[in-house]
């Protein structure tokens, strides 16, 4: 296996979230400062009486039409969202060159939980829902997306909880650097499910109002759903006109602390950020903006804030969590926030951390409250911290023009 110092460029991106369908709608809502979190309309759950979420606006039937899929037999909501974002991401991609080794790496936490929770009793007792049975397997949505887009090369799926998509993006970049692939569709997809909603509710970390990341009085997270994909390509195959930015660094670490909680000292988060910065060859002071994981949970935000403080000391760059816009989309959050981080580079914007009012007692770290548009943004760090202490940071950089 040959390691080459091969730059990795982002040449396409696509997204669907509670903020809207497509990059432009998402950007507009981020600039307006309007959250996509609201009442739960599509998911049938008793909790819709008491909780809100970042649900994608469209029903499954509408998504089938929007995705353009011909054979929707047994399809899951996560796969439908995935196809829509993947199509947008690849709209300028030329798949016809057989010499370009193309793969897909996706991250998902809940995969087709929406099908399983609806049909499990049928799976066990009758033949009425047999077409949904195979969608139970992790890897299902990746294979559906690959088939729809005609990607026949390397395929895999990562499930490291909330850092799944960030890890998928990192793995794709590493495979390009190892000269194993030239182009990879990387990202993640997750749909809102009763299992996840009840799971986080049972852990008592869901805020019934829109979350307040990094606020002293934060009460927890909101769940969301959505998908984002990036097309990343090697220097060799990326066409100048398609290059959006460089994926300049990435790093992963593990807290080795608890199956769900993050280590309270923030060391794991700091290690992931440091690894990403080291990989890029940049300095800590080069970072202009951090799109934080910032779920709004007691544990995450303190741990992440301490991690940020460890890495940046007194010179903390602008940072914010965009979770109050989208909710926590779990396995896909790393991809959705990668798109937001890239938009920050493209538009020279720092997106606001909605709802922040009071600084935490434990740490002197304050996120940006307002949209900032007066600064040149050259390097953006995007954090994803998962269940089981799986931490990943991605670093996106403007390319020199």
């Amino acid at each position, binding site marked *: 296996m040959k390691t080459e110092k091969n730059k990795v460029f982002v040449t396409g991106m696509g997204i669907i979230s509670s903020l809207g369908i497509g990059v432009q709608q998402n950007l507009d809502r981020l600039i307006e400062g309007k959250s996509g979190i609201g009442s739960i309309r599509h998911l049938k759950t008793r909790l819709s009486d008491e909780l809100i979420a970042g649900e994608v606006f469209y029903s499954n039937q509408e998504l089938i039409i929007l995705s353009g899929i011909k054979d929707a037999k047994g399809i899951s909501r996560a796969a439908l969202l995935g196809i829509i974002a993947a199509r947008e991401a690849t709209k300028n991609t030329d798949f016809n060159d057989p010499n370009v080794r193309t793969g897909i790496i996706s991250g998902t936490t809940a995969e087709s939980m929406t099908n399983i929770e609806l049909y499990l009793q049928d799976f066990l007792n009758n033949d009425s829902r047999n077409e949904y049975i195979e969608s139970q397997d992790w890897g299902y949505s*990746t294979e559906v997306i690959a088939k729809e887009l005609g990607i026949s090369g390397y395929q895999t799926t990562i499930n490291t909880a909330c850092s799944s998509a960030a890890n998928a993006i990192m793995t794709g970049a590493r495979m390009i650097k190892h000269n194993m692939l030239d182009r990879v569709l990387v990202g993640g997809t997750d749909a809102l499910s009763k299992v996840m909603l009840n799971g986080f509710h049972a852990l008592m970390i869901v805020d019934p109002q829109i979350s307040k990341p990094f606020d002293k009085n934060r009460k927890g997270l909101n769940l969301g759903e959505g998908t984002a994909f990036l097309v990343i390509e090697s220097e060799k195959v990326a066409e100048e006109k398609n290059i959006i930015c460089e994926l300049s660094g990435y790093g992963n670490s593990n807290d080795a602390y608890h199956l*769900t909680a993050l280590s309270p000292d923030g060391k794991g988060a700091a290690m992931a950020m440091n690894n990403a910065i080291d990989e890029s060859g940049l300095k800590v002071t080069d970072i202009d903006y951090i799109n934080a994981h910032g779920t709004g949970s007691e544990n995450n935000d303190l741990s992440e804030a301490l991690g940020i403080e460890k890495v940046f000391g007194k010179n903390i760059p602008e940072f914010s969590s965009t979770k109050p816009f989208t909710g926590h989309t779990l396995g896909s959050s790393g991809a959705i926030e990668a798109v937001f981080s890239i938009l920050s580079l493209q538009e020279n914007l720092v997106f606001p951390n909605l709802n922040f009012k009071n600084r935490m007692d434990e740490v002197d770290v304050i996120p940006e409250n307002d949209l900032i548009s007066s600064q040149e943004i050259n390097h953006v760090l995007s954090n994803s911290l998962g269940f*089981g202490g799986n931490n990943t940071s991605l670093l996106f950089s403007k390319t020199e023009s």
Partner: protein
Amino acid sequence: MIYINGLANISPQPTFNNKEFLADIRQYKTNMLQCIEPDYSHFFHPNALRRIGRVLKLGWAGAKSCLDDAGLQTPDTICVGTGKGCFKNTHVFLNSVIENDEKFIPPSPFIQSAHGSIASQIAIQTGCKNYNMTYSHRAFSFESALIDAMMLLSEGKYKNVLVGGVDEIEEIQFRTFDRIGHYKNPETNNLSLFTEKSKGTIAGEGSAFFFLENHPTEKTYARIRSVHTFSNPKGQIEIEKQIETFLSNNSLSVNDLDLVIPGLNGDSDFDWIYNDLMKSIFLETNQVYYKHLCGEYHTSSAFAMWLSSMIIHRQVIPEIIDFNKKPLREVRNILIYNQYRNVNHSLMLVSRHN
């Protein structure tokens, strides 16, 4: 070069901590083969033993024994492949959501329902705070973890990788996939899996771990030269081409293979893919089969990796896997070829290191 410097395999056969190589083979009269589990009290504190789900126990016992075999307490990095992950706990949690009508649900099964928990559990037990990854993609799960492990070792940032394939079969998964014909009907005997010529296979599970470094030690079993996956091939010619290209990328031809390990699982809908190759490019190559021992599961190729390591290390082919009965020659190069429902195809090349 990637060397296997420690291994462990928990399977439906007595493969775990066993001095013998595939002796005392178990015959099962069910289509759901489950692991012969070790005494977990050697691996967990009594409190943890009660709380922790079965797949996490399988995962940690496999990982710990592999580290013991390598003579090490903490690996540098951890990569796990698991097709079904912690799905059983997801079902337990979902049932409790339904039964309690979404009110007052105990969260513990949810805590252990994330697939990444298997690798996280190993990190917690060993204090390994570095790179930690979980691949969950049907029959590419273990292969993806191995490919990642090989990248990690060539990047040079870390010294070693603990890589494993872990899967659990449980009643709900079995019944569900049995409904769509994945398993044989009626029940069969695992040891006559290849003589029945009927549709479906038998379900299995396992936890196989490998300790990988980029230098040999006195413990070295074999070296892994290359791993390659491909999806949905358009017919037999493409499969043959994939295999030949894979070998030539490693400066080998089919004639250099001393052994091929196809993933035959007794399912007449798919075994023809292997059988056609046995009549074409592998006509002259020695073969061994193994899924009658461990059953079919998403990471069953990890069992084949263990098998390859043991055969190369001991230069023995146990009778229970030898269906060709060709005279044994020195085994230097083994090709593991697995396909799952003609969608996920994988090739792994294992060679003697000395």
